[in-house]
């Protein structure tokens, strides 16, 4: 037997052994002694003497039994069991203390674990169901001014075929599909992916297969196949294995289901679940996208995911990619001048919900740790107070010979018991809290997609256990040290009358309270800053009027409409809606301002403007119907609006915003100037007032509008707006009826008031502000409780002293002032420390931008209020007030002390 295994075996036996079973050994010893005595008698000793000799040689019965016992079980595990039993008894006896400690710990640990669950899902393991995720990276194109944008299909082909340090590069494009027969079609979200998508991600099929290499080619429309998700398979096919080989009707085209993806796999965008994957080359068939668009390097709409070759470092791969991309930028200078490409970890990808979540999550995690620290300080305080009460018990145990280490361990075991209970409760709460966090997700078409595995996993479990131990150490260490330093003789001599032992402990508790106040100030200032930033942003004028507007997005391509049919549908629906009662304006466009979905741009050449080298001439745009600007109440400052005459046959026209005029025309009237985009020349006919396009907090970018009928293409979205006199929801049924009257197969999905829809742009700030407010309140409450307990305790300790003072003529008001002053001194000390910390943290957080995508890169979580002194002062004053109340209550008790009573105590 391997010695190590033998040792393990012994250890296991010792652990499992029942603590008490001495009978058998007693019998063995007796038999030993009997034999020894017999031998002694045989040698001529008297039986008594023989037995005495035998006992001497044995080295004493009790010692032998003790040595045997220690060997049979693990002494420390026995001691631990004792500690735990004793701890549970103590906890049961002090119910109030126990409940308070466990509840606060549960909140602290639960909140932190929840935050971590999200951090884990979004940042640490962004994609589930893929193999070796640590070798997967996001591949982004970089514009000449450093923004990250998706890739074009041609760029992808170059990357795929020429890079050597990668095991594969895949691309995907999010798409809404309409699945089923025309009359009962259902919208399903999926991804149009390169044929190698599954093999690059390392995703296996649960049924059937994924895409074959022969389906990874670049021939448009040649691969009519689809892979469906496990979720979709279960919900729509009852998990029937014969689904493989069946056809699925997507956008009125028949595709063959070749497989079902593994159940853990939800797609290539974190915290988002897709149900269908179709080769990208089917785009021409399914969405009517023209083949030339697939061959257009301008068409950058593909998210790239690459798998590094084993052993290749991120930096090597990035360098190879950059070198190639830089060469490509020169080779394709007409479309890609100054562009490059880069790699980043999956979680950094600016696309999809996690792009918005990263900033708030970091803040959330930080605040949760803050709250947990305050909780720990509180529990440490409670334990210290308890330790004082139990000083007699500890002294007695020390006097009876217990080691200091043993007593310190007892205190630590108790704090571990407390945090353990708190952790179990908190852990049980995480799924609920995770769910609550999901409710804060913005409304809109993407919200149904957001899914997170909120089932706690091993990583989260491990993290929670770690938190529990850390909290126990933080909360228990100080009291344990204090106990182990307990001075027996001083304690006995002092007899509980003097304050020498109490004073150091008081100082300790005061430090704890001051640090609690400091942490609470940080939390409060944080809450204030975020709330104020949010408010400031809310007050920002978006530059258009979202009230009374109903927004609906149509997916006409999913109905098999061609371009002309889509335009015709819009024209007819507009006509019909305008005739409906209560409707004042109707419009449609490609992009929705302040929406959750990406905005698109076009590279422009502007007559009379010489771009600086590397200047990014990709300008954001919207493709709008003539009714759009009037409906949005965006006024024109120069020129004219689009009209129905600006159609396919008329000369191309364009309206630019004021920022555009400032940037490219130096503020001079641009009407009549010529601008090149989409392969042709546009004439500027008007200037629209600036408004907000991507984020309320953005600094206004140059922006332009082009007529829907002139520019609308197969791959664009279609948003339909109806402005009503009253409640926009009232227009919904009308919209449904009218849409069905034109074509019964068109379904109205996701209609929502524009006002609600644009809330998406506020999402990161909203979540930060509301979470901070909740957690800030918890922090203040906890700090108040801590302050109160310390003040109450110190007053109780000083009852006698106060009695003496009052007997000597001190007025109750005087005593009151003295106690409150003491509390306020502590508070102010904490505030000073906390203020410094808050300022430092505020500066750091203020520099965090919550999005890193090409649009709205200037939007910040905090706005510009990070240094608002008012918030700091208000938070400090508020905490002072709380502290005054927390110390006034015990002070009043102290002032009402009857001197005689006080002197008689003890």
């Amino acid at each position, binding site marked *: *037997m391997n*010695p190590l295994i*033998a*040792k393990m*075996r*012994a250890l296991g*036996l*010792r652990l499992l052994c029942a603590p008490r079973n001495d009978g058998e*050994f007693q*019998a*063995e*010893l007796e*038999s*030993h002694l*009997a*034999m*020894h005595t*017999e*031998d002694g008698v045989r040698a001529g000793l008297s039986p008594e003497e023989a037995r005495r000799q035998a006992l001497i*040689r*044995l*080295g*004493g019965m009790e*010692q*032998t039994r003790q*040595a*045997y016992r*220690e*060997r*049979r079980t693990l002494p420390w595990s026995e001691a631990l069991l004792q500690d735990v039993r004793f701890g549970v008894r103590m906890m049961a006896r002090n119910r109030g203390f126990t409940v308070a400690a466990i509840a606060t710990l549960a909140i602290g640990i639960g909140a932190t674990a929840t935050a971590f669950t999200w951090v884990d899902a979004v940042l640490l393991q962004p994609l589930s169901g893929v193999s070796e995720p640590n070798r997967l990276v996001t591949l982004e194109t970089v514009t000449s001014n450093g923004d990250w944008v998706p890739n074009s299909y041609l760029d992808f082909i170059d990357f795929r075929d020429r890079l050597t340090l990668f095991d594969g590069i895949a691309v995907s494009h999010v798409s809404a599909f309409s699945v089923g027969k025309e009359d009962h079609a259902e919208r399903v979200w999926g991804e149009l992916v390169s044929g190698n998508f599954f093999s690059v991600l390392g995703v296996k099929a649960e049924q059937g297969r994924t895409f074959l290499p022969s389906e990874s080619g670049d021939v448009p429309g040649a691969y009519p196949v689809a892979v469906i998700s496990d979720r979709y398979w279960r919900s729509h096919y009852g998990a029937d294995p014969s689904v493989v080989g069946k056809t699925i009707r997507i956008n009125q085209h028949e595709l063959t289901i070749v497989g079902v993806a593994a159940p853990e796999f939800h797609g290539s965008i974190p915290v988002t679940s897709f149900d269908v994957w179709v080769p990208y080359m089917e785009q021409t068939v399914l969405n009517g996208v023209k083949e030339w668009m697939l061959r257009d390097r301008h068409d950058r709409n593909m998210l790239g995911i690459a798998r590094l070759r084993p052993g290749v470092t991120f930096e090597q791969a990035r360098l190879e990619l950059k070198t190639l991309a830089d060469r490509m930028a020169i080779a394709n200078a007409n479309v890609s001048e100054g562009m490059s490409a880069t790699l980043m970890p999956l979680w950094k990808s600016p696309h999809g919900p996690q792009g918005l979540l990263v900033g708030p999550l970091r803040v959330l995690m930080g605040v949760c740790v803050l709250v947990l620290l305050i909780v720990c300080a509180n529990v440490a305080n409670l334990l210290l107070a308890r330790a004082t009460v139990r000083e007699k018990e500890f002294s007695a145990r020390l006097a009876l010979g217990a080691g200091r280490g043993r007593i310190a361990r007892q205190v630590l075991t108790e704090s571990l018991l407390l945090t353990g209970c708190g952790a179990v409760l908190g852990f049980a709460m995480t799924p609920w809290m995770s769910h609550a966090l999901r409710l804060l997700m913005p409304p809109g078409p993407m919200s149904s997609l957001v899914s997170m595995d909120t089932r706690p996993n091993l990583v989260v479990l491990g993290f929670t256990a770690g938190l529990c131990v850390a909290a126990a150490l933080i909360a228990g260490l100080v009291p344990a040290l204090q106990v182990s330093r307990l001075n027996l003789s001083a304690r006995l001599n002092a007899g509980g009358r003097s304050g020498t032992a109490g004073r150091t402990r008081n100082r300790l508790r005061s430090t704890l309270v001051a640090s609690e106040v400091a942490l609470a100030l940080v939390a409060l200032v944080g809450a204030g800053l975020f709330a104020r930033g949010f408010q400031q942003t809310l007050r920002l004028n978006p530059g258009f009027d979202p009230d009374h507007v109903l927004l609906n997005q149509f997916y006409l391509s999913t109905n098999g409409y061609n371009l002309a049919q889509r335009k015709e549908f819009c024209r007819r629906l507009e006509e019909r809606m305008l005739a409906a009662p209560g409707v004042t304006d109707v419009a449609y466009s490609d992009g929705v301002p302040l929406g959750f979905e990406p905005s698109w741009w076009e590279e422009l050449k502007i007559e009379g403007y010489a771009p600086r080298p590397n200047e990014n001439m990709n300008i954001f745009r919207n493709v709008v119907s003539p009714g759009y600007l009037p409906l949005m109440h965006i006024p024109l400052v120069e020129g004219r609006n689009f009209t129905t005459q600006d159609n396919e046959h008329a000369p191309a026209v364009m309206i630019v915003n004021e920022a555009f005029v400032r940037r490219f025309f130096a503020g001079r009237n641009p009407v009549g100037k010529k601008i090149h985009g989409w392969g042709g020349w546009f004439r500027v006919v008007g200037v629209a007032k600036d408004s907000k396009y991507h984020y309320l907090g953005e600094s206004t970018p140059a922006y332009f509008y082009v007529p829907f009928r002139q520019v609308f293409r197969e791959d664009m979205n279609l948003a339909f707006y109806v402005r009503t006199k009253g409640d926009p929801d009232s227009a919904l049924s009308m919209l449904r009826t009218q849409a069905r009257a034109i074509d019964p197969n068109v379904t109205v999905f996701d209609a929502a008031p524009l006002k609600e829809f644009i809330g998406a742009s506020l999402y990161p700030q909203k979540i930060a502000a509301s979470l901070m407010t909740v957690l800030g309140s918890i922090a203040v409450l906890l700090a108040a409780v801590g302050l109160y307990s310390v003040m109450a305790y110190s007053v109780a300790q000083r009852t006698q002293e106060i009695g003496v003072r009052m007997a000597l003529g001190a007025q109750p008001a005087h005593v009151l002032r003295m106690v409150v002053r003491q509390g306020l001194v502590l508070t102010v000390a904490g505030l000073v420390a906390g203020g410094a910390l808050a300022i430092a943290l505020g500066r750091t957080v203020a520099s965090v931008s919550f999005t890193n995508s090409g649009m709205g890169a200037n939007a910040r979580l905090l706005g510009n209020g990070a240094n608002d002194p008012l918030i700091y002062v208000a938070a400090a004053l508020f905490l002072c007030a709380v502290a005054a109340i927390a110390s006034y209550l015990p002070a009043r008790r102290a002032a009402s002390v009857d001197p005689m009573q006080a002197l008689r105590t003890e």
Partner: protein
Amino acid sequence: MGGKTDVWQGTLALMVLKTLQVIGPQHGYGLARRIEQTSGDLLELNYGTLYPALLKLEQEGYIRSRWGFSDNNRKAKFYELTKAGERQVRKAAAEWEQTTEILSRFLAPNAEA
């Protein structure tokens, strides 16, 4: 006289195993006496320390125990080697021999000469 030696740390286990290998199943008292005899009464064994050592070996799976009757028909707990114990005796004995041999080279007079 001072001629008796305490049992060195860690050697008791080997002595027990080896003795059991030589004389077969034996109870604790018998083992103790036998070890003293084997040492030519040079070892002074504290009998009380033998039992934890036996327990340890049993926990490690090198020996097993059962109740039986001694020569004088007295009820006693007998210990015997297991297969793992046999292997362990060989292994530990070889190691011990090597150790003593190395040490003796240092201690031998004129080792350098």
